[in-house]
């Protein structure tokens, strides 16, 4: 008798959990916070500050989403994930979105059933070597030991590059950026390869950054962006447009300091639509009409976030380059807000 009751309860529990797949926005509202998947730590892109709070270029997107939904950017809980655990965490529902400098590829889109909501950093894979090795080009790396993070597109690109150039290498598999840094500095591997932004970030944390050089070859396209699960279009739209609005805000000159004031005084129709003074666009996606005002006001537009964490004024020192607006020579281009 007791056994059957347990069986029935187990059956009920499993059916309930499968029904919770769609409606992520409602679930997040009910929970009262957003569960955000981040990396285990990459300087500038995701790191913990002295109070133990997650900050960085990627957590900023999660904070913008939380500000859009709740009006408070601190209503986010962070889950650090490795290259191995990130997709399982997203697919299983443990996290609501993944902002973890993840490359948008065909197989991740189609095979793993995940939806990339946009690109927040256009990057490419590069190599970093100590200056003392005397290497000036990636084509001279035959026979080298290369530190490589497992389960990434970097691994696949590396194999392709060395094979097509008829070179051999010894892969030294590592799980996290911290492990890579340690092995590279100890000399276990000659080369560290990952996205060029990650290399710059890691080099910034070295004692003598100038003793290391980034080789000129960029061997792949790495469009890095946040992602969500398949099957919930409303949630994908919410996250996608939070990112798009950050880019449009830079185009229109809205930033965290003038957002409040512009919402009252601006004459530009697109500014008024974004900040909620004209029409109710927020309702179309399940948010309040001033969601963008709260998101930009608390977190900032794309250039503010970029300059705060990875820009030229920071130790990371990355130029906008490809990540400038399309009107400034880059390829950052968001659809219009209407």
């Amino acid at each position, binding site marked *: 008798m007791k*056994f059957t009751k347990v*069986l029935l309860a187990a*059956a009920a529990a*499993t059916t309930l959990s*499968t029904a919770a*797949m769609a409606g992520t926005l409602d679930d997040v509202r009910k929970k009262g916070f957003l569960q955000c998947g981040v990396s285990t730590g990459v300087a500038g892109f995701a790191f913990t500050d002295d109070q133990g709070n997650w900050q960085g270029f990627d957590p900023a997107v999660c904070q913008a989403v939380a500000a859009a939904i709740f009006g408070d950017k601190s209503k986010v809980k962070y889950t650090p994930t490795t*290259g*191995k655990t990130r*997709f*399982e965490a997203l*697919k299983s529902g443990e996290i609501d979105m993944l902002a973890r400098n993840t490359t948008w590829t065909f197989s991740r889109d189609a*095979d*793993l*059933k995940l939806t990339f909501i946009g690109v927040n950093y256009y990057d490419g894979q590069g190599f970093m070597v100590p200056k003392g*090795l005397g290497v000036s080009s990636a084509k001279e*790396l*035959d*026979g*080298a*030991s290369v530190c490589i993070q*497992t*389960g990434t597109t970097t*691994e*696949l690109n*590396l*194999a*392709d590059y*060395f*094979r097509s150039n008829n070179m051999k*290498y*010894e*892969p*030294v*598999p*590592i*799980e996290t950026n911290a492990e890579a840094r340690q*092995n590279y500095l*100890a*000399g*276990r591997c*000659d080369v560290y390869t990952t996205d060029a932004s990650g290399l710059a970030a890691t080099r910034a944390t070295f004692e003598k950054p100038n003793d290391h050089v980034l080789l000129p070859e960029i061997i792949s396209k790495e469009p890095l962006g946040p992602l969500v699960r*398949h*099957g919930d279009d409303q949630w994908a739209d919410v996250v996608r447009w939070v990112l798009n609005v950050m880019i449009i805000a830079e185009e229109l000159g809205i930033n965290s300091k003038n957002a409040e004031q512009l919402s009252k005084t601006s004459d530009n129709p697109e500014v008024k639509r974004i900040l909620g003074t004209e029409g109710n666009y927020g309702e179309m996606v399940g948010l309040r009409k001033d969601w963008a005002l709260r998101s930009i006001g608390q977190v900032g537009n794309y250039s503010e976030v970029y300059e705060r964490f990875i820009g030229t004024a920071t130790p990371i020192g990355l130029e906008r380059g490809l990540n400038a607006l399309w009107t400034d020579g880059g390829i950052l281009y968001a659809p219009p807000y209407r």
Partner: protein
Amino acid sequence: MTAIDIDQAPFKVSNLWTDQKSRGLLIQIVSLILLLLFIAYIANNTMSNLKLLGVETGYGFLSEPSNYDINQRPIEYDSRSSHGRAAVVGILNTMIVAVCGIVLATLLGFTAGVLRLSGNWLISRLVYCYVEFTRNVPVLLQILLWHGIIVHTLPLPRQALQPADGVFLSNRGFAIPWPQLEPAFWAVVVAFFAAIGGAVWFAGYAKKVQAETGKIYPVITINLAMIVLVPVVAFFLAGQPATLDWPALTGFNFKGGLTVKPEFIALWFALSVYTAAFISEIVRAGIMAVSHGQTEASYALGIRPNWTMRLVILPQALRVIIPPLISQYLNLTKNSSLAIAVGYMDIVATIGGISLNQTGRALECMSIVLAIYLTISLSISSVMNWYNKRVALVER
């Protein structure tokens, strides 16, 4: 008067419940059916949930190219090889580290166990400290510690240590000359197995002679000499069909010879030292389990201490040692799954790690890993159980 035989009392359905034996049987059958139904329900639920989520299932991905390289590969493998071949490389790596680990752990463990019983106070205290420290620190930390020591204290390849001609020690590994074998080497292999066969036959023959005439042949020395000398003689007779491949520093790393990677060394030593601590305690327990009266009786019969240990104490001690020793060997094999923490590509790192991540087939990959570990563990278990049955006490 005809007596009704109790065994043939008329059968009533209520007997199923009232009779204790049938009741027990009935409950067991019903429980088994419920358990099988539950397992079927879980499996069915999993399959239908996967279909609902649109997740691909199936083992077809094993034949697709893996697109990643593996640094330690006992067989030919490159990034164009399939995921299935990567799994095979992983299995071979696991078995290599498991076998090497078991051998070293047994040697260290038995030595430490016997030393712990030594009369010398300093030695027994030192071994006690070693055992207590190693047993109580998690093995993952020990693996990371060994790896850290090797990578940080050994020099770069360009400043490698050279303890002997052609042997290089650097933080990229231990490079030693390795023989390149020619086809004629098969003669040596055949000679080796023939020598083993001869040794087995000779052991049986010596036992027969001892039973009949009391004459004792030095079986161990003769067998050892046979197993070592016969292949060596065959080697020279076949015209030395092997050339040494010397390692040389070319560019970034050593090429040629055999390079034992620091990941393998770290994992091997850490696992062996950790398991040896447990084995030493088992050995000590086994030896102490043999009552001292056996030793005294043996001495009273005039048997030398050396022979007492071999003929009287060890066989009885081994009976106590073998079952926990099996557990420790299984533990070592399973602990080798921590290899990915240092970058050694065993089965969990290849098929359960990189392949899983790149293809997204978590359930299929994990089922393969499960099956492999189950097979290895059950094989070790069955070998040792056979030995255990052989030496078991036969009660009269």
